[in-house]
C-alpha cells in the first residue's frame, strides 16, 4: 500500500518536474520574502515579551538552518549540534561579563566552533570510519561541553550560568537580528546553496559513490559542509545571547541538540523556510503551551519526531516542495575543450597489479596496456578478478602493489575524484544514479563537474531530449545504463570503464549495445575497457579480448584466438 502511494508520488513528481522547474526559484524567493515581511512586522502586532520570544525563535531558526546544511543537504547527522550554538552564546556572554566587546566574543566563539567542527568532521567523516562514529563523536562533545560549562566555574559561572543584562531596546535589536539572519541566509544562498558547491553537497547525500566517480571530492565536501554548519550555528548562538536573561549550561546541552533536530525534522529538511518556521513555531508553542501541557509538550514533540522520521522524512516543507533539487550550474559554451590528447603511447596501462582481500590474492600480477581509442573486453569466469581490476583502475579500491598509468601519468595513489578529472570515467554493474533527480539534473551535475559542455553522441542526446525531465526511477534499466554512460561522456574521458553494460538487458537492447558503443568510440575517441559475460557482444565489440583467471591474464587477442586458447577453455570448462 505504502509502496503503491510512493510509486504514484514518484510518477506525479516526474510529471510535475518539467513545468514547475522554471518557477521554483521565484516561488521559493516569494515565500522567503513573505516570511521576512511577516517577521519584520511582528513588533507592531504583538507584545514586547512576545517579540523577545520570536526574536529568540528566529535565532534558533538560523541554528536549525545551520544544522540543515550538514543534515538536510549533505546527509551528515549531528546529534550534538548545540555545542556549536552554545559556543556562540557563551562567547558573547563571557565577553559581556568581562566588559569586552560582544563582537570580539562572537568572533572568537565562531573561530573555536570552526576548529572544533573541522576536527569532528575530519575524524568522523574519514572514508574508512563507521558511519556510527559521527553520531558518537557529536554526542560526546555535547555531553562534554555541558560538563565543562557546569564545572569551569570561573569562566562560565557553573550551573547558575552567566547573567546577561537586559536589552536597552528590544525592537532595535529585534530588527538588527532579523537583518543579520537575512544577510547570513542570503550569503549562504549565493555562495553555497545556489552554486556548484550546493549541488555537490546534494550529490554526496544522494549517492556518494556516484558523486565521487563524477569527480566530486566527497571527504572534502562533507568536511566543508560540517564546518559551515558549525559556523552558522555558532553565529546563531552569538545572536541569541542577548535574548536570554541568563546563559546556563542548557545552551550547549543535549536537550537543545535534540530540540534542533526536532525543529528541522518537523519543519522540513533541505529547505530554508522549513527549519526556520519549525524553530519559530515550536519555540513559540513551547512557551504558549508550557503552562497547560508541561512535560507533555516535549513528549508530544518526541512522538511527532518519530512519526516524521517514519512517515514524512522531508517534514512539512517537504510536502510542499516541488521541482528540481539542484541549482542550474550548466557551464557556458565557451569552455568546451578539444579531444584529450597526450603524447603517451597508451591511454591506460597497468603493471604487476596485486590486490588481496584478507589473504586471498584476487589480482596476482596483472599487466595490461590499452592504446588510445582501443576497445578491450575483459572476460573470465566468476571470481577471476575482473571487477576488482576495474575498481583498481577507477580508484574505488587501491592495489597493494603495482602501477596504474593514465595517459602517461601515474595514478595508483590518486583518489577517485581526481582520476575523473584526469580523464577516467566509469559505470557500475548496477547503474549508480541519484535517486529523485531527473535525467537533466544528472547531466547537469556531470557537466558542472567537467566544467564544460560537450555534445553527446546521437543515441545519448536522444535520451536527454526524450526523458530529460523524468526522474531516473521511472527509466528502464537500459535507459538508466545509457544515462550513466552519458554522464561519463560529459567529462570527455580518455578511458571509459564499463562494468557489464549488457547485464540484465533485453535481448534486442543488448544486440544494439555493441554497435552503439563502437559508434561512441569512433565519435568521442576514448578507449573503452569493458567487463562482459555475453560472448556475442564481446565478439561484436572488442578490438582485443583479455581473459582473466585467478587474478592473472591467461590469454589475450581476438575473440577467435582467445576462444581457441586451451588455457581459456580449461578455465571456463575445466577441460584438460
Amino acid at each position: 500500500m505504502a509502496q503503491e502511494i510512493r510509486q504514484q508520488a514518484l510518477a506525479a513528481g516526474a510529471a510535475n518536474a518539467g513545468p514547475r522547474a522554471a518557477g521554483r526559484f521565484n516561488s521559493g524567493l516569494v515565500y522567503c520574502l513573505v516570511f521576512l515581511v511577516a517577521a519584520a512586522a511582528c513588533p507592531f502586532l504583538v507584545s514586547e515579551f512576545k517579540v523577545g520570544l520570536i526574536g529568540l525563535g528566529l535565532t534558533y531558526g538560523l541554528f536549525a538552518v545551520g544544522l540543515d546544511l550538514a543534515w538536510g543537504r549533505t546527509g551528515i547527522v549531528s546529534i550534538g549540534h548545540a555545542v556549536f550554538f552554545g559556543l556562540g552564546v557563551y562567547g558573547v556572554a563571557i565577553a559581556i561579563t568581562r566588559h569586552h566587546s560582544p563582537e570580539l566574543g562572537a568572533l572568537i566563539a565562531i573561530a573555536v566552533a570552526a576548529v572544533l567542527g573541522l576536527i569532528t568532521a575530519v575524524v568522523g567523516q574519514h572514508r574508512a570510519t563507521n558511519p556510527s562514529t559521527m553520531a558518537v563523536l557529536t554526542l560526546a562533545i555535547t555531553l562534554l561541553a555541558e560538563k565543562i560549562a557546569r564545572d569551569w566555574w570561573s569562566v562560565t559561572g557553573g550551573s547558575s550560568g552567566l547573567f546577561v543584562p537586559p536589552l536597552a531596546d528590544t525592537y532595535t535589536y529585534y530588527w538588527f537580528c532579523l537583518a543579520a539572519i537575512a544577510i547570513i541566509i542570503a550569503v549562504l544562498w549565493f555562495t553555497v546553496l545556489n552554486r556548484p558547491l550546493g549541488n555537490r553537497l546534494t550529490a554526496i547525500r544522494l549517492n556518494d559513490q556516484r558523486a565521487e566517480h563524477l569527480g566530486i571530492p566527497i571527504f572534502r565536501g562533507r568536511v566543508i559542509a560540517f564546518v559551515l554548519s558549525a559556523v552558522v550555528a555558532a553565529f546563531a548562538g552569538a545572536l541569541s545571547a542577548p535574548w536570554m536573561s541568563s546563559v546556563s549550561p542548557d545552551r550547549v546541552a543535549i536537550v537543545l541538540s535534540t530540540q534542533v533536530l526536532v525543529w528541522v525534522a518537523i519543519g522540513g529538511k533541505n529547505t530554508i523556510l522549513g527549519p526556520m518556521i519549525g524553530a519559530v513555531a515550536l519555540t513559540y508553542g513551547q512557551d504558549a503551551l508550557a503552562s497547560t501541557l508541561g512535560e507533555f509538550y516535549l513528549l508530544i514533540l518526541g512522538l511527532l519526531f518519530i512519526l516524521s522520521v517514519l512517515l514524512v522524512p522531508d517534514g512539512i516543507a517537504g510536502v510542499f516542495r516541488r521541482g528540481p533539487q539542484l541549482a542550474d550550474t550548466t557551464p557556458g559554451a565557451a569552455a568546451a575543450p578539444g579531444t584529450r590528447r597526450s603524447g603517451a603511447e597508451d591511454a591506460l596501462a597497468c603493471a604487476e597489479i596485486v590486490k588481496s582481500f584478507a589473504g586471498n590474492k584476487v589480482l596476482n600480477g596483472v599487466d595490461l596496456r590499452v592504446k588510445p581509442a582501443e576497445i578491450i573486453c575483459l572476460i573470465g569466469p566468476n571470481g577471476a578478478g575482473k571487477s576488482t581490476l576495474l575498481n583498481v583502475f577507477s580508484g574505488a579500491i587501491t592495489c597493494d602493489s603495482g602501477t596504474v598509468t593514465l595517459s602517461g601519468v601515474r595514478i595508483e595513489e590518486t583518489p577517485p575524484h581526481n582520476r575523473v578529472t584526469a580523464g577516467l570515467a566509469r559505470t557500475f554493474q548496477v547503474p549508480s544514479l541519484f535517486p529523485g533527480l531527473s535525467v537533466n539534473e544528472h547531466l547537469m551535475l556531470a557537466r558542472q563537474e567537467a566544467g564544460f559542455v560537450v555534445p553527446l553522441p546521437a543515441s545519448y542526446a536522444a535520451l536527454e531530449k526524450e526523458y530529460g525531465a523524468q526522474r531516473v526511477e521511472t527509466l528502464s534499466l537500459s535507459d538508466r545504463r545509457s544515462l550513466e554512460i552519458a554522464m561519463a561522456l560529459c567529462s570527455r574521458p580518455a578511458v571509459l570503464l564499463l562494468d557489464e553494460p549488457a547485464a540484465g538487458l533485453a535481448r534486442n537492447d543488448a544486440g544494439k549495445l555493441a554497435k552503439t558503443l563502437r559508434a561512441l568510440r569512433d565519435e568521442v575517441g576514448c578507449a573503452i575497457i569493458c567487463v562482459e559475460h555475453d560472448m556475442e557482444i564481446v565478439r561484436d565489440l572488442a578490438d582485443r579480448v583479455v581473459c582473466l583467471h585467478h587474478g592473472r591474464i591467461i590469454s589475450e587477442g581476438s575473440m577467435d584466438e582467445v576462444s581457441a586458447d586451451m588455457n581459456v577453455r580449461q578455465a571456463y570448462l575445466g577441460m584438460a
Partner: protein
Amino acid sequence: MSGSIQVLLDFVWVSAGLALVAFSLGLILGELKIVNVAQGDLMMVGAYCMYSMRALPFALALLITFIIGLLLGLLLERGVLRWVYDKGFIATLLATWGIGIVLEQVAAVLFTVSQKGIDPPLSGQIVIGELTYPTYRIVVICGIAALLGALLLLVYRTSLGLRLRASIDNVEMAAIMGISPQRTFAMVFSVATALAVLAGALIAPTLAITPTLGLSFLAPAFFAVLVAKQGSLAGPVIGAVAVEFTFTMLQAYLNVTMAEAILFGLLALFIAIKPQGISWSWKTARRET
C-alpha cells in the same frame, strides 16, 4: 594500599556496568546495523522500574524488570524500528533518538524530573584488610561477570550463537540458510534491550535516578563499541574495560571533567588512527600477519 584496592574495585564496578551496556549496544549494532542512541534511556527505564517496585523483594523486582525489558524491546522493534530498516542509517539513528526522547519524557511525566533513589537490597560492607566495600556492589560485579561469561559462551560455543554470528556476518546469506532475519532482529533487539534495562536496574541503587540519567553512559558505551571491530561481540566488553581503565588512570591525576575531556580526545584520536577499531580476535590477528 587500601587506597589502591579501593580504586581497583571502583574500576571493576564501573567496568562491569559499562560492559553490560556496551555488549548490548554491540549486539544491536552488529546484528541490526543500528546505532541505538536510546540505549542509555533503556537503562533509565530499568532504574525507574526498580524505583516503582521498591516495595517488592529486590530479586522479584529485578525479574519483572527484565521481562518488561524483553517486552519493551519487542514492542520498539516491531512497532518502530522495522519500518526504518530500509530507509538507511540516518533514519534508524533518528528513530532511536526519537524513542530516547519519548522514553525520557514519559519518565518526566510519570515521575517528574526531581531525583529519586532506592536503597540497595544488601546494605552490608565487606571488609578487605583495612578497606570496607559495599557488599551489593561486589555481588553485582560477580553477577554481571557471570552473566557476560554465560552470554559469550552462548555466542561462541552454541549452535544458537553460531546462527547469530552467521546472521551478523551476512544477513542475506544466513537468511538463505534458514535463519529468519525478522525473527533474529526481533529476538536480538529484545534481548539487548532487556540487558540494558537490567544494567540500569542493577546500578539503580547507586544512582540519582532522573529521566536523563542514561545519557552519561551512552558516550562511553559507544566508544567501548567503536574501539572494537564492528560485529565482534566480545570486543565491546574488552572495549568497556579499556575505556574505564583509561578513565580511571586519568582521574588519578585530573578532575573528572578534565579526565573526561582527555578521554574523549584520546578516543577520537584512536578512531582517527584506527577507524575500523581493533580486532580483538587472536585468531584473525594471527592470520593477517
